[in-house]
């Protein structure tokens, strides 16, 4: 993993993403705590000539949803960093990586489903302000989930081969 290699660039990208996600989650958590106590009376969201009243429960729900969203990505990046650590140690087919990949797939699937459900809910509650999500929007993330689960199976086979070879004398 020399300087300038793809692996080192990926490591930097993962470290930066991890730090940024924690920063975002931290800021949003502070905002959530602030909005619990700060009065929101007479505050509205202006969209052209229309005005939507800002309700505390809606604001807290929105911020909470974003915290969950970033939290899920923190979990994914954490797993990726742990996988990367096994790669740098020369042991990428460690059995734990199979569990990590499956966890990433499950989190991605949950986030994809969650975002779709929340968007559908919000678009119904705020008619005309938020577009309804289409099933077509799900295609790319679902394809990503499929790829992750296929990779998990590849790693499971790799881990099996590794176990087989490590006690071969």
């Amino acid at each position, binding site marked *: 993993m020399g300087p300038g290699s793809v692996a080192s660039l990926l490591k930097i990208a993962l470290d930066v993403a991890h730090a940024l996600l924690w920063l975002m989650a931290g800021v949003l958590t502070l905002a959530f705590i602030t909005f619990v106590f700060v009065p929101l009376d007479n505050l509205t969201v202006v969209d052209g000539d229309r005005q939507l009243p800002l309700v505390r429960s809606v604001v807290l729900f929105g911020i909470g949803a974003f915290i969950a969203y970033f939290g899920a990505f923190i979990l994914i990046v954490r797993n990726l960093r742990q996988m990367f650590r096994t790669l740098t140690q020369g042991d990428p087919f460690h*059995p734990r990586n*199979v569990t990590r990949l499956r966890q990433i797939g499950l989190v991605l699937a949950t986030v994809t489903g969650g975002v779709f459900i929340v968007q559908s809910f919000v678009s119904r509650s705020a008619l005309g302000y938020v577009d309804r999500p289409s099933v077509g929007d799900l295609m790319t993330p679902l394809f990503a989930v499929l790829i992750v689960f296929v990779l998990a199976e590849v790693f*499971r086979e790799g*881990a*099996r081969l590794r*176990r*087989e070879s*490590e*006690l*071969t*004398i």
Partner: protein
Amino acid sequence: MAIRIQLDRLLHARRMSLAELADRVGVTEANLTILKTGGARAVRFSTLDALCRELDCQPGDLVVWEPGPLTFSDEI
């Protein structure tokens, strides 16, 4: 384990130490201990060839099968 390596018996018969055999075969003493205690998952033909050569025996003298469950499972 259903497969047992009779390394101890052969070493005793040849009056050879595990360290000496390890040196002659080119396998670490730690790996030979794993083999002796039934911890190995598989044995390479090259290792078996070297063991038979140094112990002056046939593979059948080294490996015996006994009824019983396997220690290892291939499941991850």
